[in-house]
């Protein structure tokens, strides 16, 4: 028992170094991980799809995909996992760590880029480095799918307009015959340049177990 604890403590320490979460947060997340995986070592897609709260999320598929996407693991790998372990789970989660008061400007910039990359990967399903119109349309369709009366037609139109917008901001002098193939990551960064991401792409991971206490302190 004691040996197991030290081992897990050691493991937590590794993960802390890798992901930047505090040991308490990792413990919390691990608890959740076990809950999701029915105490298995790995999680499969089915596990995540079963989460009732997620059922109403219009982009559920994309979110789940993001967890099984090797590109989100910072290891320059491409492809998809069939099942992910706790470490991979944490790595994906670490995209959403909020900055602290100590975070420097460069680190913030890096974090922002990371988050943008995460979003970009959500769009770019075939991993060719560009978001094509089809890929964009698909996401918009999913986004709008829960809002009822708006048909596919409108979703398509909006995606098209959005695409045009990207094209017009990034390639201002385009000849009429040119064709804009897709959004590259640079363009993607460009269009979301002024967008406030700090308040939108962060989760306050709790240090304390949610079951026992509702509002714990996050590490500051």
């Amino acid at each position, binding site marked *: 028992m004691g040996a197991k604890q030290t081992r897990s403590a050691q493991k937590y320490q590794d993960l802390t170094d890798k992901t930047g979460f505090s040991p308490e947060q990792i413990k919390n997340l691990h608890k959740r991980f076990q809950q999701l995986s029915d105490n298995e070592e790995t999680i499969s897609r089915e596990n995540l799809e079963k989460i009732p709260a997620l059922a*109403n999320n219009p982009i559920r598929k994309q979110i789940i995909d993001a967890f099984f996407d090797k590109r989100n693991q910072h290891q320059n790998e491409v492809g998809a996992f069939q099942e992910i372990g706790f470490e991979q789970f944490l790595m994906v989660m670490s995209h*959403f760590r*909020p900055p602290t*008061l100590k975070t420097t400007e460069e680190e913030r910039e890096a974090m922002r880029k990371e988050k943008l990359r995460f*979003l970009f990967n959500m769009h770019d399903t075939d991993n060719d480095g560009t978001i094509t119109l089809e890929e964009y349309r698909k996401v918009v369709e999913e986004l709008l799918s829960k809002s009822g009366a708006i048909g596919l037609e409108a979703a398509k139109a909006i995606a098209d307009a959005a695409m045009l917008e990207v094209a017009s901001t990034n390639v201002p*002098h*385009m000849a*009429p015959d040119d064709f804009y193939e897709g959004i590259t990551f640079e363009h993607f960064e460009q269009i979301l340049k002024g967008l*406030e991401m700090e*308040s939108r792409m962060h989760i306050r991971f709790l240090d304390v177990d949610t079951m026992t206490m509702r509002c714990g302190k996050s590490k500051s």
Partner: protein
Amino acid sequence: MDLNISRRAAALLILCSGFSLLCGCRGEVPPKPTGGVTIVPPIKPDNGPQAYPEAEKSNLPVFTMDYPRIQIPFEITLWMLLASFAKIGFHVYHKITIWVPESCLLISIGLIVGAIMHSVHEEPPAVLTSNVFFLYMLPPIVLDSGYFMPTRPFFENIGTVLWFAVVGTLWNSIGIGMSLFAICQIEAFGVQDINLQENLLFASIISAVDPVAVLNVFEDVNVNEQLYIVVFGECLFNDAVTVVLYNMFSFVAEMPVVEPVDVFLGVARFFVVGLGGMGFGILFGFVAAFTTRFTSKVREIEPLFIFMYSYLAYLVAELFAISSIMAIVTCALTMKYYVEENVSQRSCTTIRHVVKMLGSISETLIFFFLGVVTITTEHEWNWGYILFTLLFAFVWRGLGVLVLTQIINPFRTIPFNLKDQFGLAYGGLRGAISFALAFTLPDNIGRKQLFVTATIAIILFTVFLQGISIRPLIEFINVRRTNRNLGTINVEIHCRLMEHTIAGIEDLCGQWSHFYWKDKFMKFNNRILRRILIRDSRAESSIVALYKKLELQNAMEILDTVSGDISAAPSIVSLYEEKKSSAKPKKKFLAADLRNMHDILSKNMYKIRQRTVAYTNKHTLPNDSQTKEILIRRHTSIRRSLRPGSFQSTMVPKSHKYFSLPAGQSLDLKFPPARLSYTDDHETLSEVAYPTRRSRSGRPTRSSSRAMMPLRRLDTLTEAPSVDTVGDGGRITDHGVSRTNSSYSDSHVAPRRHLNSSNDNDSGSVDNLRNNHHEAPEEEEEPQPSSSSPVWAAEPRDGTTRNPLLRRPQWNPKKK
């Protein structure tokens, strides 16, 4: 007496002529004589009675005057007019308002007027009594801030906002009150007669911050959203807290002895008042939303419901002596979303404008009045008390922000850093509310004079010193910024994408935050609330809403460049459009998707059209929506035709867009010329005059100057060769050249210009331009059949939209 008159008249004339010089608008000049007469009338009643006996001899007086009868409304009107003139004056001169907040300028003008009045021993009109203030001046101010509260950031930061507003205000009033009471114990200052209750009362008055000036600065430098919303929300809710405290303390101040029980009762009452106000607000908000569900037949009075319900909420709350500010704010917050979907676009614009107008008039008056009162009333100046008031106000605010952020930061995803805290603390300007509260203090408070003086001192100090220095300081310390004016579809899509992602990830980790609650609320809202409260309840994603808005903007931009007319189109945007629209027109579109874009555009225009048609059938204004519809659609097609052209030949001035329009004709074809007859012309003409007067910040001058230029040019073009042949030629080449035939008709542009120019040679003014604009459809009826319009007929929508009743569902499949 004569001297007085001439002096005043001279001063006013100087003021007014100064403004009118600055404005340069001809429309503003006519009221000037009344402005000049402003304070003359008070003397007239003296002369009146003398003249009167003579007139009495005859049976029917030919000329009588009854000044006392109209005195009060008359003077109020003149005051408002003068204050508004002041506003025009320094708004025209832009450089001032960037560096000096408007409130400073208003107070300065008030000071000048006060000085003039003082020198002629004239009393300011006794307008500002407690009742007038609470029943008439305060509601518009809070309604304004409540209605324009940015909803999303507010609810995302609601905890912090309330924390700062409620606890911060309590902290400030109690802190300042206690320390002032301590100061009062020092004999040297000679203010020992001020007891604790009065000190607390005074402290609660001066702890109401009113950072309108700061908000303007924040908006200009794009300070981050969290800071902005906290300052905004703070000013809103601490008004409520302050007024509650004020009532409580002024009640307590009259009591000889305060028992401990009273303190507890006071605390209990505090909650009853606050929560009760909120309850009433929500109730009235929903009732208002529900009412507007049924107003589709009486569009003219729609805006009235909004004002009446919010005022009713205010009055009822006042009746039960609960927080009326809370009531009106929550009422506005609740109903805004639903009402704006129910009412027509134009009513919506009206509501927004009237809310803004009433709010700014009230505030202007109070600031103006503050300036006047500063000079004209007797002051009791006590160096010690006033300086310590200033010091404590500053120290307690700074301390409060520091301590409160330390407490709230662990609960925030994005903690406030020191710079934010500085912005928060330094943004604590005192303003109109404080002054009004002090000025309406009951007379039985012994040191009322001193309180008024101290309040004025602190307002002047904060508004002038902090208000002017905050912009350089914020820019200097480089507070975290957010660009809040990103009106692009991509941004909206990604905001939603991120929200859903976060909500999803949170679900995955089994945590909840406001995203979770937002998700839940949206579901509840879409399932139940919308169904009850909104007539045409289709849940609409914010992406779609933004998308529609952008398209509308595009259309209206053209309307604007043509005539400065914005009333014609449904304009949600009119209050915001200035900034955004400037970014939009540069858009250029790629060939492959152009056609798609057109579909979208037409679809959108079509939808709006349905809406307009649907509600105008019982309208008293005949037909005008239809003309507008045509206008919009015409312009859509103009835009379409010009977008590609605009970057190929940049030499062509912008305004040529309008004159070169080849477009619209295909659209107009389906409307028989009779329907566009003179009544329509008349109708829109009358509307042209109105918005140009209303539209702000240099826009009218710009557009009119632009409009003039092409006119001159066109005159030179009148001798162009016969219209039809050139037109045909142009079209033929067009056919050959452009792949996407609907739009790349650069060559097309020129011939059409000739066509229109032949109608235009007599036009010399903007009005004519307008006229011409409406005659154009009729003109175009003739060439259309003969030239068989190959280019425009090629557009998919032409044949199908012919019947206005044919709706989108029917014609979509044909195309796809």
